[in-house]
């Protein structure tokens, strides 16, 4: 076979042509990459160098292993093949390139090494199949939020050209080879195919050269085009995964919010570059699903545009936060974190939402309903606008008085959360749990009127100052109380106490959700079901318990202990579908653009399960949202919302 790098093309040696093309490609590539890096270097600082071991682990499972892509199994498998084909092809490309640029090196071309040539060909064929799957999915069975864009088409064609030119080269090489030298493998088969099609072996060397050049030029072109396209994700995603947020609830570093390029952190901006526009975030988003204005994918895309144009106010006088990203997009987020949980490149939508909410709040631009809630929280410590002195009114018909953890030492301090205290529909559930724990001789107490909103959702509407105020007051109050551990009814309280109250924790006080406490009590035999409840139920994983804190099993253990039959919904555990009440949404008035509510979609899902009588919840806000949704969907007769505490009392007391 002729050496493509030494062969003379009309008097010009191959390697000089290759040098020229390589330089052009690398320059075009390097220019754009340097530019991106420079933009990020000027953004706000954010340290993402902690826990290196964990970060390397993420890269292994999610870049090499492509774990999250398998949430959608077919395209996940196809992408897995394309990814590994890319790794192999990139390696052999640089090998060929190096060999071609420096012909004096006495090393073979990769396709001259038999086992490498074979692997390249086999994975090449698999990748062509995967590419067909990808193309059919994108252009024929197009999922929601996947665009049939030119960019995508160009990329698919370029990859196809890279693969096919390489395979054709192997075929021509086989065709030119003497009989018996390479009859097996894909190359041998293609050689035979070319012979059958009447290609003369005499022409094979020339055709081989052509295929070699097509391959090299396509890859060089691809490289130059890459940083200008959505396929930048191919370069950026290993970094976006490595520098991922290691805690789903992690808030952006302290700031007065962001609306301009320089106000975002580099990692927030980097999301724009790492995005592959796959649309998984949109497909997981409850607000998007219900026709609210938010599209997490568009949000990231706008950030990308911001990085590309460097303009917080565009040439048309459009402001980034206001005209491009509209306040209603930002307010529609429930902070359920399913977008972040699904994102294969670990982009961070919620921190972006938080930054922009902080900015809107600092400018006093808050949606209807929220000012009243925030003013109430600042004044009375609860969003209901009720007197602090009525916090423990639910205890009045209890028949016994729970201990006062401010005055006497208790093993468990029960921090109820405002919904469990004030909401008239929830007080009986609160009493149910109080009685169960009392009967089980759990040493617990409450802090009566000293309990205030924990601030989880205050923080998530961007009112960082009010959160700080509540945190200070709550921390000071809890430091005066006498308790070993703290448990709460509300997953939102749980999240912020566990992750955002460093002065409360210090590892001194275990923080538990009541389902974790109940599960432990059943495990230790301190709670025993007197009978198995004969119900078939389904269970809704609250966002702030599940996705945010990984508590999936404790509630299920409780359900098992009381003997109910659990039928899982299609969207369960980390794929659980938000009730729509999180992130302060429960306080905001509906903007009226949506065609339905997340809670309605969820109760329909639950009602679609055969023979399911109860939708079991472990979050007071879920109870409120789903009870309403049963009324608005007319499913009241078919399904009932039950708090797990009610079922436990029924099973234990019987």
């Amino acid at each position, binding site marked *: 076979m002729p050496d493509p790098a030494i062969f003379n093309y009309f008097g010009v040696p191959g390697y000089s042509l290759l040098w020229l093309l390589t330089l052009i490609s690398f320059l075009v590539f390097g220019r754009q990459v340097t530019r991106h890096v420079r933009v990020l270097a000027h953004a706000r600082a954010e340290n993402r160098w902690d826990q290196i071991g964990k970060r390397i682990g993420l890269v292994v499972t999610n870049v090499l292993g492509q774990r999250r892509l398998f949430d959608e199994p077919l395209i996940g498998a196809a992408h897995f093949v394309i990814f590994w084909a890319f790794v192999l092809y990139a390696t052999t490309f640089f090998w060929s390139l190096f060999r071609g640029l420096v012909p004096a090196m006495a090393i073979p071309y990769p396709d001259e090494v038999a086992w490498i040539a074979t692997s390249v060909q086999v994975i090449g064929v698999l990748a062509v199949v995967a590419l067909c799957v990808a193309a059919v999915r994108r252009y024929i069975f197009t999922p929601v939020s996947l665009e049939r864009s030119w960019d995508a088409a160009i990329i698919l064609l370029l990859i196809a050209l890279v693969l096919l030119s390489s395979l054709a080269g192997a075929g021509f090489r086989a065709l030119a080879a003497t009989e018996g030298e390479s009859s097996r493998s894909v190359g041998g088969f293609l050689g035979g195919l070319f012979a059958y099609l009447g290609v003369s072996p005499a022409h094979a060397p020339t055709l081989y050269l052509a295929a070699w050049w097509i391959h090299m030029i396509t890859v060089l072109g691809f490289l130059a085009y890459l940083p200008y396209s959505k396929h930048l994700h191919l370069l950026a995603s290993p970094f976006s995964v490595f520098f991922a947020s290691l805690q789903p609830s992690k808030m952006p570093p302290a700031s*007065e919010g962001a609306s301009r390029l320089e106000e975002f952190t580099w990692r927030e901006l980097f999301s724009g570059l790492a995005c592959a526009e796959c649309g998984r975030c949109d497909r997981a988003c409850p607000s998007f699903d219900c026709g609210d204005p938010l599209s997490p994918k568009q949000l990231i895309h706008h950030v990308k545009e911001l990085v590309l144009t460097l303009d917080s106010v565009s040439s048309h006088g459009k402001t980034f936060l206001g005209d491009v990203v509209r306040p209603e997009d930002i307010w529609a987020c429930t902070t359920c974190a399913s977008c972040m949980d699904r994102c294969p490149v670990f982009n961070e939508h919620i921190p972006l939402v938080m930054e922009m909410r902080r900015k809107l*709040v*600092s400018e*006093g631009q*808050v949606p*209807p309903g*929220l*000012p009243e809630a*925030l*003013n109430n929280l*600042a*004044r*009375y410590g609860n969003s209901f*606008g*009720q*007197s602090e*002195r009525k916090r423990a009114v639910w205890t009045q018909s209890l028949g016994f008085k729970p201990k006062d953890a401010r005055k006497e030492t208790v093993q468990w301090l029960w921090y109820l959360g405002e919904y469990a205290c004030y909401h008239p529909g929830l007080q009986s559930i609160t009493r149910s749990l109080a009685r169960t724990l009392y009967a089980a001789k759990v040493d617990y107490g409450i802090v009566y009127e000293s309990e205030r909103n924990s601030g989880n959702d205050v923080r998530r509407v961007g*009112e*960082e*100052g*009010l959160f*700080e*105020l509540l945190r200070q007051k709550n921390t000071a109050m809890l430091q005066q109380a006498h308790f070993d551990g703290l448990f709460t009814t509300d997953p939102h309280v749980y999240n912020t106490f566990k992750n955002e109250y460093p002065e409360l924790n210090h590892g001194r006080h275990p923080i538990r959700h009541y389902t974790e406490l109940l599960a432990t009590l059943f495990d230790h035999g301190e709670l025993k079901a007197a009978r198995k409840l004969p119900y078939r139920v389904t269970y809704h994983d609250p966002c702030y318990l599940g996705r945010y804190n990984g508590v999936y099993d404790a509630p299920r253990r409780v359900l098992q202990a009381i003997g109910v039959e659990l039928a899982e919904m299609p969207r369960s555990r980390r794929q659980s579908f938000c009730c729509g009440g999180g992130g302060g949404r429960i306080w905001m008035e509906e903007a009226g653009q949506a065609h339905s509510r997340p809670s309605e979609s969820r109760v329909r899902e639950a009602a679609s399960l055969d023979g399911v009588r109860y939708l079991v919840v472990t979050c007071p806000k879920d109870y409120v949202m789903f009870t309403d949704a049963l009324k608005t969907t007319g499913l009241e007769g078919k399904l009932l919302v039950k708090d797990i505490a009610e079922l436990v009392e029924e099973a234990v007391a019987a």
Partner: protein
Amino acid sequence: MKIIVLLKMVPDVVEELEVAADGKTLDSEFLRLIANELDAQALEEALLLKEKYTGTVTVVSLDAPEVDDALFTALAKGADRAIKITGGDGALGTRAGAYLLAQALSTIQGLLPADLILTGAQAIDDLDGLTAPLISHLLRLPQLGIVTKVSVDTAAGVATVLREFPGGVRGEYEIKLPAVLGIQAAEKPPRYVPVAKVRAAMKSQVIHSVPAPMMADGGVALLQVAAMAKPEVTEHAQMLRGSPEEIADQLCEILAARGLV
């Protein structure tokens, strides 16, 4: 444009109100005060006018518990100056309060003349809505109440205001400046001011404390509370059932039995 907003602290009805042992005042143990809701509307209207026409907004309050919070909040929202009149009797009625305020407005340097004096059209302890009329009378200025919209022609020195009447009827009036307006609602709901801004205002801005001026008549007790009591709990209503004739008969019997007819 120079705007003065009169802001009053009133009992917060979120807490249950109890009558004190003297039978004339509210029990102060759990009593909390809050800025009168309609005064907050007046402040918002003033801030909107300031944004529209430029100018200054000065908030004036009689001293009361928690008034500092309300005044710093007003400053954080964009008011330029906050004045607290100290030393007056805390439990002033509307009339005495208006006298004190009118006196203070005239004596404190740089307050008058102002183009507009805005205050809430009512308060929970002033359902008659007398503050604005009393102030206008004392300062000899024109006045309109139950106002929901204000626009100003600064060159001509007149304001066009919208007044609300029952039954959805609205009237548009022209009023010569300076004037006193009782605000029913601002054109937008009162803005939210983040806690961080209020805290910043507490650090960087000051509330001017001014002693209450001596009143000409030597005292301010223009109206005295004789007694204060909670509504008496009466017996539950009795439902009359039956045909209209039967009900009429029963009704007559009851009225006759009680000696009412």
